[in-house]
């Protein structure tokens, strides 16, 4: 099951709620299934992030482009812009160190780029050096995407982590009874 935040926005029934002005224009556009436009990341960023996920995710977890795109769907435009900037800088770092773009490198070489950049030993921060921002927006962004989804947390026996709209315990009973 690929439930995620975007799935929720579709699932709650746009027809019933949007008329009450509950959803912002951004959410409505995202829920319409559009895959282009300013609510999305550019392809180069997605490719870099998918390549990065292969380094930082456990080997049992496979990453599709749609997983990355879905994660950023509900984030604001400023956050998306900063993700794209950090991805460009990671790619530039790879070219500088290894003469090849990040997503074209082997997994081991991608890990080496991260280490050499210092991303594995800094604190994540939304502003500052390339290393702290790669850690914050890309590495930790991907970890947030993974571990706010059963895709990542079922590894630890959790199927409804914080950040995931998996319903509340006893919800079906409440809906039946009332």
């Amino acid at each position, binding site marked *: 099951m690929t439930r995620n935040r975007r799935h929720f926005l579709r699932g709650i029934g746009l027809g019933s709620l949007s008329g009450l002005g509950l959803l912002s224009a951004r959410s409505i556009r995202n829920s319409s299934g559009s895959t282009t436009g300013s609510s999305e990341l550019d392809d180069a960023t997605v490719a870099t992030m998918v390549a990065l996920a292969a380094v930082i995710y456990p080997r049992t977890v496979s990453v599709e482009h749609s997983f990355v795109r879905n994660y950023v769907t509900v984030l604001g435009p400023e956050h998306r812009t900063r993700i794209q900037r950090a991805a460009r800088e990671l790619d530039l770092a790879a070219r500088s160190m290894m003469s090849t773009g990040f997503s074209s490198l082997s997994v081991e070489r991608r890990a080496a780029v991260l280490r050499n950049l210092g991303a594995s030993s800094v604190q994540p921060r939304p502003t500052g050096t390339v290393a702290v921002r790669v850690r914050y927006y890309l590495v930790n962004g991907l970890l*947030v995407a993974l571990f706010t989804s059963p895709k990542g947390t079922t590894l630890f026996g959790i199927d409804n982590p914080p950040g995931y709209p998996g*319903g509340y315990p006893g919800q079906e009973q409440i809906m039946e009874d009332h």
Partner: protein
Amino acid sequence: MENDRFADRRPSPPADVCIVGAGVAGGIVANELASAGYSVVVLEAGERFPPPGDRFDQQEIALRESHTIEDVWNMGGQRDRFSSSGSGEYPLNSRRVKGVGGTTLHWGGYSPRLHPKDFEMQTRYGIGRDWPFSYEQLRPYYAAAEQELGVSGVDDNPFLERQEPFPLPAFPTTHTDSLFADACETLGIETHSLPQARNTQAYEGRAQCVGYGTCSPVCPIGAKYSGDVHIRRAEQSSARVLDQVPVQRIEHDRRGDSVEAVVYVTPAGDRHRQEADHFVLACGGVETPRLLLLSESDRYPAGLANSSGAVGRYFMDHPYITAVGEIPASGNPNPMGYNTLQSQAFYDHDSAGPGSIMLTFDNASPVDILGPALRGGDENVWGDLADPVEGDLWGDKLVDAIRDSNEKGGTTVKMHAAVEHLPRRESSVTLDGAKTDDNGNPVPDVRWELGTHARETHETAAEIMRDIIREMGGTVRGVNLADPGPGGHHMGTTRMGRDPESSVVDERLRTHDLGNLSIVSSSVFPTGGAVNPTLTIAALALRASEAIAADL
């Protein structure tokens, strides 16, 4: 419209009512009066945030432990500077939010009522102070407030009789709750459900809870009530709400009997005056007394409406202690964002001490995955400091590290006890003239002084919690008696009373000193009981709105 620095923030023509503060109190008053046809202007210091359904940026910040709760709603910085010169450091900016919706943007949602004894502390026990009206007089407003906020609950509290049904069904109690409840039953402690302003079902056009579990500090879809619900309703009735316009000063007429205008500043730095027939201060238990103190004049040298000297004094906030234990049983299979079980078995008391205790039982998460993941496998911040040498972990090694960091003998359980905090003059909000905010105003100095009554009640609560954990077959890991945390319930600083010499407002929440100035906030509570204050704030807001409308 969101966070628009260039919106028109010039004043309205003189309004019927000007409200300072767009939280739950200001929102309810604005809605009551605007929908009755009065012209209403609301002035809010903080910003207007994205609407429910669109708060995933806030959730993202909340999920990341490199941020603090203050970052979620943009608290801190020059605007929010404060001092804390008492015997303990008071963490003010993690216990309040400025913005449309106010502190209910980040609250947990719990909505219990005070008990009758809380209104009669002086009469019954010779301590604290009486309210100028009884629980019975506030009861119909409690019921109406539960409808306004959308409180989910069931009538199972044996310690507080109620006549009115809840508007929403209660959240079901959980597996962990049953472990606590069984042990409590053996000990003769009755447990019951925890009323909360969180939608078990869609309610009045607002989304049903779908289990995001980030409730405090943010529900991204608005299934948890926040004060902007009433602000939006007020706007639909043509109330005008300005954000990012911190009120600097309240100006009175020459005789000092009535308020003429409030002065506010826009993001561009322009100062404006808003006139009105009636003014309502609804900026919470810290900023409300602060604004009165900042509005001193020749007629009111100790602060506006402060003939009593009580403005800023008798500051109360419920001190919470938490008991942590390990039990040899499994708890809830999944994390949750809210609690569902409480006990008020120790709330009412015959003698003056120990005081009231409200126990809540935590739906503690069985495992923390995201925390160690974002720390690169480090169990805590000490591991983080070694990173420049050792480096962080990802991939399969990260999975092992997350498992290790959650490794423990049994299941961790937690219980919380909120206890009553008696009003004391030395516990206060005053001005710190040596420190100023981004508009040059002296900042609030918060002194949170507990006193022996609260500390004795804590000792009793700790014993009870230890007994419960042991009855569960567990071992007690600790109770933080030395370091209780404030609930963020800012009460008492412009208290109600019949006597103008010792209180700031009367039972209509009208200041004794100025006939057209009301205060709607937990700052008017003469006592605070041991319950979260928001439902009482909402009830008072409904009651005060009637009194204001009667005068317009």
